[in-house]
């Protein structure tokens, strides 16, 4: 670059304008020109064999640098290819250049309307999916052979057997915590033995079903959504439909039935482990005998409590499997859609679990 006072700056490119040259231009030459824009900028292209995107950008930047003083840009010694490119480029560079997606202008009413419409559609789909799951279960009740037994057993294994270690560990710890925390209070009244009743009642009728359901929602609800969602994307569900299969009967029914059978059993396991946790605290910290602890536990529990917990587990199982499959069938788009479906399956399931648990609590209080 050579400068002749404030009036004329001459820029001569030493060769083809590539990325390093463009970078040097933007670091050394452009700041100088922008600081003191000349009346006329002369760009000598004699050494430039051709002009590509880097070259065009360089010229555009130079032009902008002198724009503040309404300076004139003159390009000299340009070859034919460069002249042609320049002629075609003007309109392109005048257009908007952006890398980011441009968000449409924010309109509160439009946005609100969109959300309402989307949620109404979602609700409609959810309702119709309840119907289609019921229909599928009805078909299986009429013709049990239409249930895919192999898939149901695999699902039972995945939902139940594979979850036993984690459910057992969590419940054992829950039992320990409840026993330990409650013993701090009950000890003051010399009511140590009632720790056993508290652990048993809290776990069997309330925490056992909920904790199990939350673990199942996290492990299996998300996996239902992801499995069915990827099948949706790879057109496997379309293929099933075209072959005359009912996708709900084929994919959702085995999972729903497996969950309904296995989750109550898993809940029983959870209860057992929690009571064992309480027993550990009772025997080693509260100095109770194992026999006294167990008999107090059995005294506190009625069959009704156990069945009530199992009933909850059945409903939670229905909710988790239904939500997981629903979110899977709703997947649109690509991999991101599958991820979103898995997340949404877990969040929606946990919300429904808590909602239905409160309904159970209300029913119980008016019983």
């Amino acid at each position, binding site marked *: 670059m050579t400068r002749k006072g404030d009036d004329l700056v001459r820029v001569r490119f030493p060769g083809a304008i590539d990325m390093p040259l463009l970078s040097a231009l933007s670091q050394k030459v452009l700041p100088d020109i922008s600081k003191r824009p000349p009346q006329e900028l002369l760009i000598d292209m004699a050494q430039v064999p051709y002009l590509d995107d880097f070259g065009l950008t360089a010229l555009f930047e130079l032009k902008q640098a002198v724009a503040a003083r309404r300076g004139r840009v003159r390009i000299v010694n340009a070859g034919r290819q460069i002249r042609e490119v320049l002629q075609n480029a003007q309109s392109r560079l005048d257009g908007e250049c952006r890398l980011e997606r441009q968000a449409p202008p924010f309109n509160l009413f439009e946005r609100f309307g969109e959300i309402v419409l989307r949620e109404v559609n979602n609700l409609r789909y959810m309702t119709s999916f309840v119907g289609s799951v019921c229909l599928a279960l009805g078909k299986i009740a009429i013709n049990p052979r239409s249930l895919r037994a192999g898939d149901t057993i695999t699902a039972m294994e995945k939902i139940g057997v594979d979850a036993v270690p984690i459910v057992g560990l969590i419940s054992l710890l829950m039992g320990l915590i409840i026993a330990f925390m409650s013993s701090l209070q009950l000890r003051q009244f010399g009511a140590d033995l009632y720790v056993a009743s508290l652990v048993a009642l809290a776990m069997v009728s309330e925490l056992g079903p909920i904790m199990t359901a939350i673990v199942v929602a996290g492990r299996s609800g998300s996996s239902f959504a992801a499995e069915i969602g990827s099948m949706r994307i790879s*057109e496997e569900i379309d293929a099933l439909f075209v072959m005359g299969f009912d996708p709900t009967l084929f994919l959702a029914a085995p999972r729903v039935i497996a969950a309904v059978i296995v989750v109550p059993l898993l809940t029983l396991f959870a209860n057992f482990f929690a009571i064992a946790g309480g027993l550990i605290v009772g025997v080693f910290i509260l100095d109770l005998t194992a026999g006294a602890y167990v008999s107090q536990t059995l005294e506190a529990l009625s069959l009704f409590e156990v069945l009530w917990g199992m009933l909850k587990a059945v409903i939670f199982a229905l909710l988790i499997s239904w939500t997981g499959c629903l979110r899977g069938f709703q997947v649109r788009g690509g991999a991101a859609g599958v991820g979103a479906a898995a997340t949404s399956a877990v969040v929606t399931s946990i919300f429904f679990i808590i909602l239905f648990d409160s309904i159970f609590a209300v029913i119980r209080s008016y019983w």
Partner: protein
Amino acid sequence: MQAKARIIQVEKLTARYGADTVLENISFDVYEGEVLVIAGGSSSGKTTILKHLIGLVRPHGGRIIIDGQDIVAGDGGGLQKTLPKIGVLFQGSALLGSMTVAQNVALPLRRSGLLSDDMIRKIVYLKLCKFDLSQYQDYLPSALSGGMKKRAGLARALALNPRILFLDEPSAGLDPIRSAEIDAIIKDINQRLNTTIVVVTHELDSIFNIAHRVIMIGKEQKGIIAVGTPGQLKTDSADPFVRQFFSRKETV
């Protein structure tokens, strides 16, 4: 060809995705025993037509009659009667990932509920032999190459010897030799079994190789811009876009 019976009639089909109209008032017929190619530029609505023809999407307007059954009207009874007569090869083959190749091909046969497991096993094996896949019968789809997946998909689509076969981009993503193989299989099925075949593709070599007739879809026109044999469209079409499309080989 024209003297043959119409097996598919599409009348004034309009397709929309949300507020976007993709196809407007298109009508065409498919004749029994022909290979009809639905061609057109990218995102012109070719696959949309196919999805409507196989009942995956309900049209916004119009009628589709396949072998005398209106698959749009009513509660879907017409569609349910039609599905056993058709086979579909999806673009990505859509083999069920949790099942082996043989189990995938057996699916339509099991669905019919008319055959014993032993018979199904034999039929599936024979089908796989025909497609050169017998040694892969207990492979999962994920272990197959693109060409094998297409052949397995075709074997499944043909499991019930359907009267009409729909193929969505059968040779997309395959090398020229594999594409030619798939073309040969399509021609063979058409000639041997007199299966009516509707193919969605924009692969020119395939079109010239297999098509009896071509329907050309225009993106801007949202409908059919030309109908004819590939040769006719290449030389005689009044639409410069159609001639350009079919002459790509010369202009490259």
